[in-house]
């Protein structure tokens, strides 16, 4: 009780140094805990990009590459999948549903993806949430187009706007399919996944823009196909897709299906299980987070050292105080305990304040982080790792207090009663 009283009064007496020390520890702890929060949030956002899909299938190639173009909209496939091959798998008895993806076109830097109704019905993300249309309706006609939430927000498009789609992925296509005006019929709810950054049309829509382009070059004069002609067609042929998402009739069939698809003689395909592939990919890019962790560890070390320095330098000014306490009968243990207690209180206050900073920061920044980076960091109790960090900082604080405490005791003993101002 006496020690606590003394420590409190003494810290209060040096309010400025005390607050600065507490602040520096608080900032270190906030960084450490915050980095851990962001790390967990990142990993969760990442692994929740797709859910409910058992397999993602594309032309034969690397797992990561398939994941990148099919899920994250980065890079492009090596080859396409013939329409009839997809259809065969779609009708396979072990397959419950598929979502076809036809990639390769863009509008002002955003990917245009050809798909069908399954996308709106079956696509799931973050723990099974379905895609929802915020305004309008899903694309069903050849020139219908649905915008991801971010595309709509960035480009300022609304329902009824007419849009040209670029062939290839450059931001300003020099070969615009501007004879094929698409119309915005729907805008999707924000999902905080790559879905927000894509534009969705029908498979037929993708085929229509490529009519006359079968050779890969613009149609020769006289061979152009215009919108009226397309609309007049009974059925628009879809010859190929890029990849498809697949739901199996039962989870148990997934592995068998994966093997069957990957070893199919008919067409070289690769099938990946999203959870497994995402985890593998995270391991690959997760080194950055270790770096972050190391840095925040050093910051904590610096914070503790700062505390050590501030206690240590204050000792000289407190020699007299220590000598008085000794003269009045405070034994070595009391003197050491007093300083260790002070250091411990500093680090405990600092740690508590730091955790407070993290929660306050999350409350303030959460909407911005979600909107800007699609990063969802849930506000919840500290996890075990974070508790361990905070505990370690407090313990380190107490231990750090031992150094000046022992020094103070020695000095006090030496000064004895003969202390002069």
């Amino acid at each position, binding site marked *: 009780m006496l020690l606590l009283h003394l420590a409190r009064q003494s810290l209060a007496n040096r309010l400025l140094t005390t607050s600065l020390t507490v602040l520096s520890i608080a900032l270190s702890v906030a960084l450490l805990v915050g980095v851990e929060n962001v790390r967990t949030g990142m990993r969760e956002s990442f692994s929740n990009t797709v859910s409910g899909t058992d397999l993602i299938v594309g032309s034969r190639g690397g797992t990561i590459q398939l994941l990148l173009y099919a899920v994250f909209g980065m890079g492009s496939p090596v080859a396409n999948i013939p329409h009839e091959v997809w259809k065969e798998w779609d009708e396979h008895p072990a397959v419950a549903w598929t979502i076809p993806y036809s990639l390769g076109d863009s509008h002002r830097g955003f990917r245009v993806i050809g798909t069908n109704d399954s996308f709106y019905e079956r696509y799931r993300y973050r723990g099974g949430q379905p895609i929802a249309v915020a305004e309008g309706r899903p694309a069903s006609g050849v020139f219908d187009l649905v915008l991801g939430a971010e595309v709509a927000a960035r480009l300022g498009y609304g329902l009824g706007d007419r849009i040209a789609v670029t062939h290839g992925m450059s931001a300003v296509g020099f070969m615009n399919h501007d004879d094929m005006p698409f119309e915005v019929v729907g805008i999707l709810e924000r999902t905080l996944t790559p879905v927000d950054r894509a534009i969705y049309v029908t498979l037929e829509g993708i085929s229509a823009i490529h009519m006359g382009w079968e050779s890969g070059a613009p149609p020769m004069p006289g061979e152009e196909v215009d919108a009226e002609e397309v609309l007049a067609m009974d059925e628009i042929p879809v010859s190929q897709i890029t990849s498809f998402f697949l739901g199996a009739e039962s989870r148990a069939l997934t592995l068998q299906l994966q093997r069957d698809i990957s070893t199919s003689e008919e067409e070289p395909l690769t099938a990946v299980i999203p959870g497994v592939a995402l985890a593998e990919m995270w391991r690959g890019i997760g080194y950055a987070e270790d770096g972050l962790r190391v840095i925040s560890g050093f910051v904590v070390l610096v914070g503790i050292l700062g505390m050590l320095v501030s206690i240590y330098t204050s000792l000289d000014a407190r020699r007299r105080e220590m000598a*008085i306490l*000794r*003269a009045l*009968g*405070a034994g*070595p243990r009391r003197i050491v305990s007093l300083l260790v207690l002070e250091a411990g209180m500093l680090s405990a206050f600092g740690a508590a304040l730091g955790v407070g900073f993290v929660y306050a920061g999350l409350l303030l920044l959460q909407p911005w982080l979600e909107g800007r980076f699609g990063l969802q960091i849930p506000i919840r109790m500290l996890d075990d790792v974070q508790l361990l960090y905070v505990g370690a900082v407090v313990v380190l604080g107490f231990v750090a207090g031992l150094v000046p405490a022992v020094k103070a005791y020695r000095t006090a003993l030496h000064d004895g*009663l003969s202390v002069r*101002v």
Partner: protein
Amino acid sequence: MTDEASCVQARSLTFAYPGGPTVLDIPELDVRSRERVFLYGPSGSGKTTLLGLIAGVLRPPAGTLHVLGRDVGALSSPARDRLRAAHIGYVFQMFNLIPYLNVRDNIALPVRITAERRRRLNGSVDEAVADAAAHLGIEELLDERVTRLSVGQQQRVAAARAILGAPELIVADEPTSALDMDRRHAFLELLFRNVTETGSTLLFVSHDLGLAELFDRSLSLPELNRVGA
């Protein structure tokens, strides 16, 4: 070795700081219980060293020193700390108050640190503090910060701290050097009254010979100490 009435008894006491020359060599020193002794010594005559030995901060390397019946030379450092804390009230030259505590907490400090001294109080710590403060005329100042007090007030706080819990021996190291003549006498009167009430022994050290006549007995350190001679 020591009779009941002896408070401080030194025989062939010598002391030297590590690596330094001998600064004290006292063949004989006796202070009896309830005596009020004035110890005169100019600066540099080893006053503070002698007080350090009596208070148990320094350990006598040679000779015998008995304080309150205990052989100080034979006690361990923590045991000397306990002896000082429990039985000796110390009034410092510079008063040595803890700047961040208020008057009440400063006065109460020794009895809060030492359970043995707390047990000798009649009543609670707060009552004892109020009582001691009343005796020294500082009862109005109990909640003040010590840094806001005048020199005379600080001196009385230091005295109240030393007498609280009625230690058997009160050692005062030039406590009046910062006071003017009138205040010195007033302060000494207060101190004497308290010492008489509690039955404590008073060892008062000063270079100011003018105070000597107020005491039962006065000793001259240069005469006691063969080093200075």
